[in-house]
């Protein structure tokens, strides 16, 4: 029916004996949105890097609009009309939007830069696709969503006809993601062709015309989005049926952590306002809300990195004053921070170092001021084994682990010590289906063993699946708790919009 603008034909690429891409073939038609679906490590990013000339394929070829694309040359890819929007933006925060877009677009040795013409072209593109952004703003001053717009504009500025987006929603809020997808659909309507890489089933179903599923470096299936389902795609992606574990009914214990009208004020801004909750042993209390509504402050407060300005906190029934991170460790509070690469683990350090860092002063890991490496490594190896951390051992640099495995390490570091309380902030964010299921199973196991879990999340399915009781967080305030058995997604959606306030009034 429509002509193919892109044909990938039998592309293979190995890294040291490991076949990242194995005879992959796929096509892309004009005006089409194709989702490339697969778990982390399925070979999606490798394929796109080959397409964009970052890697040279071992076998196979790529044709753009019928003409062969020379391999391994980003310039040739740009010239052929391929634009790439990286997951980690290729932008310079200290330069302006216009400068970021213009880099490399003019002859290097021309005596002056045609910035006036560039500005006009950028403006026209921004209007045509609804990607409004100030060309003279310093890039670092823009929000993540705006920066992504710049990244897209950059590709369009180079006259891209084929746009590749690598996990474009990984860094966006839900609202920003919706805006992005309506932009992408508008682009397709105007004749551009798009491939977006994802492991999120919801957005694949919502935005793509066609879905290509990769597993283990091979194309395992191809479906029209209208003719498939989330369940089918999940199964194709993982290779077997996956079901996220769901909690079973069980008796909760005594309250272990209580907050009564707790407020947190930072630089004159109320991050938390008179927040109250009561967390029991052996239950999961879900805190649901759109990100940016005070979740970060709540997690920091309970992790000991923020101090409250008003209210009382009772730990194991006793009122406590300000407490530090060391106090949380000492009193059996495990923490899974929201940003695992920034707060959760130190990428340049080994897995074993990350595993014992917060307990390094305990006698079992240090003797007379010296680290007992053997004990520390043994401890890390236990975590690696028990929590199924793959992609490296105790001595691997943590940076080399995938997101899911790093999260398992952080989870293991906390749960191996049988904490009485676990503060889990967005524990499954950015993980693929298999890893999500693993993380959820661990949290439910901890609950069964009597740990009190505070689950802070913006994923409705996650909260409904795990939590016994749910409170919504909106504008730094917490709703009264509701039992998870009494609510559905729609009711939770209303709570996240702050609907309980009206009832109270």
């Amino acid at each position, binding site marked *: 029916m429509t002509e193919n603008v892109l044909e990938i034909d039998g592309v293979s690429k190995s890294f040291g004996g490991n076949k990242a891409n194995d005879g992959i073939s796929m096509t892309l038609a004009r005006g089409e949105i194709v989702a490339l679906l697969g778990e982390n490590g399925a070979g999606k990013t490798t394929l796109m890097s080959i397409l964009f000339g970052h*890697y040279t394929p071992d076998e196979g070829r790529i044709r753009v609009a019928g003409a062969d694309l020379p391999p391994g040359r980003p310039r040739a890819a740009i010239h052929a009309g391929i634009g790439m929007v990286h997951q980690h933006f290729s*932008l*310079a925060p200290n*330069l302006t939007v216009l*400068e970021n877009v*213009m*880099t490399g677009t003019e002859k*290097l040795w021309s005596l002056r*830069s045609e910035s006036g013409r560039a500005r006009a072209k950028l403006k026209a593109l921004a209007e045509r696709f609804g990607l409004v952004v100030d060309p003279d703003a310093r890039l670092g001053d823009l929000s993540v969503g705006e920066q992504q717009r710049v990244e897209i504009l950059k590709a369009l500025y180079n006259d891209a006809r084929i746009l590749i987006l690598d996990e474009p929603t990984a860094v966006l809020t839900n609202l920003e993601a919706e805006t992005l997808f309506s932009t992408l659909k508008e682009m397709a309507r105007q004749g551009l062709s798009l491939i977006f890489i994802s492991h999120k089933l919801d957005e694949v179903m919502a935005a793509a015309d066609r879905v290509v599923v990769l597993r283990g470096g091979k194309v395992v299936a191809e479906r029209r989005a209208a003719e498939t389902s989330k369940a089918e795609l999940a199964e194709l992606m993982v290779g077997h049926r996956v079901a996220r574990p769901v909690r079973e009914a069980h008796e909760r214990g005594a309250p272990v952590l209580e907050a009564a009208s707790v407020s947190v004020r930072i630089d004159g801004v109320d991050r938390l306002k008179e927040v109250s909750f009561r967390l029991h042993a052996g239950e999961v209390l879900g805190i649901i809300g759109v990100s940016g509504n005070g979740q970060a402050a709540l997690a920091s407060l309970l992790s000991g990195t923020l101090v409250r300005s008003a209210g009382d906190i009772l730990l194991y029934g006793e009122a406590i004053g300000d407490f530090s991170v060391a106090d949380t460790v000492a009193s059996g509070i495990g923490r899974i921070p929201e940003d695992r690469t920034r707060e959760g683990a130190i990428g340049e350090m080994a897995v074993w170092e990350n595993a014992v860092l917060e307990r390094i002063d305990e006698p079992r890991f240090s003797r007379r001021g010296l680290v007992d490496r053997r004990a520390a490594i043994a401890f890390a190896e236990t975590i690696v084994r028990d929590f199924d951390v793959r992609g490296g051992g105790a001595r691997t640099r943590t940076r080399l682990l995938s997101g899911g495995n790093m999260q398992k390490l952080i989870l293991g570091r906390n749960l191996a010590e049988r904490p009485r309380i676990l503060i889990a902030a967005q524990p499954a964010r950015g993980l693929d289906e298999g890893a999500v299921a693993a993380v959820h199973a661990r949290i439910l196991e901890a609950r069964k063993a009597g740990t009190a879990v505070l689950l802070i999340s913006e994923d409705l399915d996650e909260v409904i699946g795990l939590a016994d009781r749910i409170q919504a967080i909106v504008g730094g305030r917490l709703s009264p708790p509701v039992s998870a058995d009494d609510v559905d997604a729609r009711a939770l959606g209303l709570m996240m919009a702050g609907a309980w306030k009206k009832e109270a009034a």
Partner: protein
Amino acid sequence: MSIVLDIIASSGLWAAVLRIATPLIFGTLGALLCERAGVLNLGIEGIMTFGAMVGWLAVYHGADLWTGLLVAALAGAVFGLLHASLTVTLGLSQHVSGLGVTLFASSLSYYLFRLIVPLSGSPPTIEPFAPVNVPLLADLPFIGAVLSAQTPPTYLALLLALLLAYVVFRTPLGLAIRMTGENPHAAEAQGVNPMAVRYGAVIVGSALMAVGGGFLTLSAFNSFFPTMIQGRGWICIALVVFASWRPGRALFGALLFAFFDAFQLRLQTAVDGVPYQVFLMTPYILSIVALCVMARRARVPQALMQPYRRGER
């Protein structure tokens, strides 16, 4: 108070300011160019020393003064190539490589000088650049008197600051250099070769540093002696931060430091009863104060000191 005013009102002070500033301008612009592309070049102190030595040596052996400066520039470029090979291709620590280049280039300067020029009671001299009178400018009151004391390399330094400002901010090449210093991966993705940009910037930047050194032996003084650079290279490294990596502000910073220096020299002779070391300290103290004020809002090139490797994030 009147002493201070007298000093400031004398054309001699301002003539000295320009003279003292010239090697700093060359050195600062050179260091700035390297750092804009993302490479810290602590080889500057040694490269200036070598430039001073080799430029002087060329003239001592019969070359004319401009050829002397050119020889200094070429020698600087060679050390730049060395630094670039170590930091860009091999991706070694820029600090360590730079300090290595400084130690190597300084020692080599002293060694070659001692090898070629026999030891004598007073160091041999050359005929340095003579001041030039630029038509029209020389006729202006006061400014004429200040400028007529200057030699051609000083004019070159002033023009170079303007030229570099234009190149960095107004040309596609400048944008490519800045992008390489901010995010070499992004530069590469847009078809710029960050390796080539870094090599070019370090080689040209090092050549400028060496010309700054050459000015000392071919214009400010007429002989070479060890330790004559006296930390000017390090001042340049600080001036780059002070200037927030902008050539125009680098020019201003070099002039400001030179003003402090020239001023304290005159104060030493004008004021009795204060140890002269106190005055010697003042330019450095004032520089630290100025640095504190200016550098807090400085925008450091984000990829400065980060080696670039293709395909690695």
